Structure formats: structure tokens, C-alpha cells
């Protein structure tokens, strides 16, 4: 089952312009952890390149650590669903836009250069809250 998911991801990475598609990489993955990309479910593992629109999904025993190209860092807790809805970053100007949707679960954030570049350039949206992120370290939790 794993092979079937990994192969298309590898092919995609080869076809896409790496500099454009690459928004960050998974650094840590334990337990049930995967990345949803369209209809694909890609097992999370260190080195997996993330793209705008990807969703990070962890099971009850799952955890994930991600570093983005603007140096923002994420730690996803168990039972979490995190959509990387929008990510734009200009390496030359170090400005951009980063919108994350935390649908459920737990997310620790160390904000990077996008958050620093302009007020509310980085946002985290939950089912009941909209956050404008400055250069800060914090945890967001969604419980039902």
C-alpha cells in the first residue's frame, strides 16, 4: 500500500519546478502521519517536500514536525488536521503570505520570516478563531 502512494509523489516531484512547488519539508514523523495532496495520501517521512494546498493529518498516535522555507516551524500533535491553504514566499524580498487552517487538534508554531515581513501576512484559521501571527511562538488547540 505504501509503495502505491510513494511512487506518484516521486513522479510529481520530478515534473514540477522544484523551486516553485517546494514550500517546506517534513523533518519529523512518528506514528500515523500522512500528507493529503488532492486525492493522494502520502505517508509522512523526513525529507518529504510539501506543497501549497497539502493537508497534514495525524492519527491518535501520530506526530509531525515541519520546517518551511521562510524558517517557520510547525509541530503537529495527535489527532490533528492542518491545511496549508496558502503559502507564497519570495526568497529575494523575504516577503509572502501564509494561511494555515487548523481544522482539529493541536499545532505548535514558531513563526518565521513571512510573519515578520508584514502585519497579518501569516494567519491561522480554526473553526472558531482567526489569528494574525506576529513573530511569536505559540500553541493553537481545537477541541470539541
Amino acid at each position, binding site marked *: 500500500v505504501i509503495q502505491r502512494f510513494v511512487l506518484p509523489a516521486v513522479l510529481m516531484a520530478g515534473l514540477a519546478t522544484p523551486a516553485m512547488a517546494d514550500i517546506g519539508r517534513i523533518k519529523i514523523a512518528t506514528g500515523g502521519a500522512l500528507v493529503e495532496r488532492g486525492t493522494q495520501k502520502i505517508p509522512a517521512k523526513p525529507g518529504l517536500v510539501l506543497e501549497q494546498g497539502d493537508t497534514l493529518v495525524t492519527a491518535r498516535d501520530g506526530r509531525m514536525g515541519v520546517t518551511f522555507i521562510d524558517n517557520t516551524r510547525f509541530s503537529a500533535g495527535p489527532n490533528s488536521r492542518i491545511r496549508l491553504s496558502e503559502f507564497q514566499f519570495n526568497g529575494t524580498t523575504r516577503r509572502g503570505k501564509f494561511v494555515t487552517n487548523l481544522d*482539529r487538534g493541536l499545532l505548535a508554531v514558531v513563526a518565521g520570516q513571512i510573519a515578520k515581513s508584514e502585519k497579518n501576512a501569516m494567519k491561522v484559521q480554526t473553526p472558531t478563531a482567526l489569528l*494574525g501571527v506576529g*513573530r511569536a511562538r505559540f500553541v493553537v488547540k481545537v477541541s470539541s
Partner: protein
Amino acid sequence: MKRLAFILIPLILAGCQKRSALLLFPGDGEYPTGAVAILDPLTGDDVAVVDTANSEAKIAGRSVTTHVITGDIAKSRYGTLLANLPDAPKSFTLYFKPNSLDLIDQSQAELPALLAEVKRRAGVDVEVVGHTDTTGSEVLNDELSQKRAGEVATMFQKLGLDSTIIRAVGRGERELKEQTADETASEVNRRVEVVVR
């Protein structure tokens, strides 16, 4: 029956109601406490700003309650979560002999530590950021810094780094290490920063 539904439906909705909470961690030497703004989901205007370390905010749209937590909450409640944050990116600055791609001796001596850092990290990626001094036009310096970054990226490939983990970027004269007037030559500003993530 109608009355029962009247009572039950709000109860069910309340049961399904999701709650969001925010906890802001204190800064340390390198990193400020910073701030997170709670925005009106419809207008995007600030409803509240959380900028006190260890503040916890409970949020339901425009409704926000905030209190400051005492004790070491970060470790006791979120220890595992924080342990799974990837290491902070590590930055190395390389300097070059005038008009050449040869590193100065001091930078050459830093290479083993840089390569060891690349090897140490799981799922590593490396960003090579070129910087110029203020000699020449901004447009030209963007090109020059990009070219220099590209050359250093090629050097790293020759040292055995996988090309798919390297990104080369030019910052031109936007981030001077020493502040100078325009059109000033500076060995300190002509540099390449290598960020290991």
C-alpha cells in the same frame, strides 16, 4: 415532540461546538515573546492582541477570554509537542577572496562544521543566500547575488550534497551586514549565507 426538539437541538449544537485556545510562549535570548492578534473572522480587524508571555486565550469568533497562566505550562502540558518541533535552522556565513569563488581561509575552515550539520539533520534542506555590497545598481546586484548563490550551490553539489535539497537565492543589497552608503565596496557585505534546515 416539537417542544422536545426545541430543547434538544440547542443542546446537541452546544455539544458539537468546537472550541479554540491559544497559548503564547515566552521569548528567549534570540526570540521575542512577540504577539498574536485575534481577528474578527468577518472583517479581519483586531479583536484582541495577545502579547503577554504565558497568556492563554479562549476564542469563539469575536468572544475572547484571556488569562495568564503561572508555572511552567509549556513543559508540563506541551512537552511532547515542543519536543517534536524541528531544530531551529542554523546559519553559516561564507566570505570570498576578491573577484573569485575561493573562500577565505576562515570560511574554508567552517565547511566541515557546515557539512556535519547537513549530515546530522533528518530530511535536511539547504538554502544558499547571496548578498552583495552597494556597488552597482540594485537590479545588477540581484543578478550578481543570485549568480554567486548558484555557484556556491554547485560547489556544494561537488562536495556531495544532493541537488534536490539545495535552493539558491539572491538578496542583492537588501541585507547589509555593515551599513554603508550607496556605491561602497565592502568585503563584509559581499557574502553568502548558508541556512541549514
